[in-house]
């Protein structure tokens, strides 16, 4: 459970190639986000995920995806309004991962009022591999996008 009104969750596994993308974006954002914004890393375990966003009004999830698109392609989903498309429901532990956590929270009335997902198409998820060049390039773009979004949010609340 978080006390922050805005929560940024970098999802992934640092030891599985491009799956580290969310964690690395969270690393970069951590020292740069405004006061009141919490930035965490999460492994995507659904019960823990649902618990961590409790109490947050705005949530941004960042994760690597594997939908068959070109590596590095960035996807945006407004999860408060739409479910993640079927082709993104692939990679999870025992078929119970981030999309299921989101839909379960929706069914139980526990989805944050504003929750967005930024996914980047991964290329390789092998154990012990590093982030592939296509995703390394996108990391800065996603970080800048989120910082700009937080800035706009601050201005609109000022």
């Amino acid at each position: 459970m978080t006390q922050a009104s805005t929560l940024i969750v970098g999802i992934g596994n640092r030891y599985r190639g491009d799956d580290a993308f969310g964690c690395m974006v969270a690393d970069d954002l951590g020292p740069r986000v405004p006061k009141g914004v919490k930035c965490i890393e999460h492994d995507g375990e659904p019960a823990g995920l649902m618990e961590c966003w409790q109490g947050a009004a705005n949530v941004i999830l960042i994760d690597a995806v594997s939908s068959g698109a070109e590596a590095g392609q960035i996807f945006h989903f407004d999860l408060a309004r739409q479910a993640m498309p079927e082709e993104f429901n692939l990679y999870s532990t025992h078929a119970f991962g981030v999309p299921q956590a989101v839909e379960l929270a929706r069914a139980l009335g526990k989805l944050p009022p504003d929750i967005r997902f930024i996914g980047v198409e991964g290329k390789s998820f092998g154990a012990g591999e590093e982030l592939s060049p296509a995703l390394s390039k996108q990391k800065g773009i996603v970080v800048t996008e989120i910082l700009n979004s937080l800035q706009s949010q601050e201005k609109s609340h000022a």
Partner: protein
Amino acid sequence: MSDPHKNGTRTIKVDYLARVEGEGAMYVRIRDNVLEDVKLKIFEPPRFFEGLLRGRAFTEAPDITSRICGICPVAYQMSAIHAMENACGVRVEGALRALRRLFYCGEWISSHTLHVYMLHAPDFLGYPSAVEMAKDYPETVERGLALKKTGNDIMNLLGGREIHPVNARVGGFYRVPARAELSELREKLLHARELALETVKWSGALDFPDFEQDYVFVSLKQPSEYPMNEGRIVSNRGLDIDVSDYDAHFEEQHVDYSNALHCVMKPDGLSYHVGPMARYANNFECLPSDIQDVAKGAGLARVCTNPFQSIIVRAVEVLYAVTEALRIIDAYEPPEESSVTVKPKAGTGYGATEAPRGLLYHRYTIDADGVIRDANIVPPTSQNQKMIEDDLRCFVPTCIDRPDEEIQYVSEQAIRNYDPCISCATHFLKLEVDRG
């Protein structure tokens, strides 16, 4: 997909069984309304973990093998650790042994609860997924989530994190918890015990197909403790061996249609059953009497032979794990050292522990410098694979007159009785019926 019957032959092919933990398929051929063939195909590319371990330090095996499974990393760590300590002639006792057991309790609670509520319950209640089920049974799903979270909390505290934990090592832990940290867990566990009791009662009220099997149940056994981390390997047919004799009594066989090895018992080549039902059958008397009574109250006999009732057995094991975790916490005195020194010794070590899905066997040969020269890992799903086929061979004829879609549905449910690591995607299977 269905085709009209042709020449009295129906072939039910489930083409794609999994996504992450493995990939597989189910093939059922029916001719003239008689079941002719069943194959559970696992075509996941072999992961070569055993090869990867060769040349690495004996201290690295727990962290490397924990990556094999995101659901039961503690089991892989514990089997590896016990095998290495066995090779080096070290036994870890006292508070460190108790903490390892507590760690395992966390995994049983987390893994079993995920399966009971999120994967298996929708089968019994007629929903395609837990998400759909949550719309009609929100309290039930919330109970499952809260219970699972308690298991995660134990794994987090003892392992540093719940998925692929990093704190366990050969000889003990890198860091042991303070009493105050365990006291926080205690409060959560007291609530979890109520949830676990409700889970047993709730699971006992589900409808179960009338189907019994005469299983050879294989599990660990100890004189007075429900097994998790150690014990002798026993069966309900009189087998009683040291873990180091595993290879003399069990054999992994390659079958041409599957990448996973099939395990059989020597010398007859027969299938056997590992997992919660086997543990329960071989160790019922080690459960506290109040838990025995709760199990009986939920409709379980002393031995459960209906695989569909494995959901109740898992619920009973969750109740036991929560109760055992409380017992360990109440008795806990922090050890002086977080681990004992383990010096490498040339030789072969054997370890078997009870993963949530059943017996997990590791064997390693190391040299005098502690370098791994040989490794063998036999996971529970490999051991149950032939048993799952045998179940389907007996179960499908009981519903052979039903439409193919229904046969597929109940067959998937029957596969999920074993909570196999290939069970993930059975909700997404394509059915192809070729009536020849």
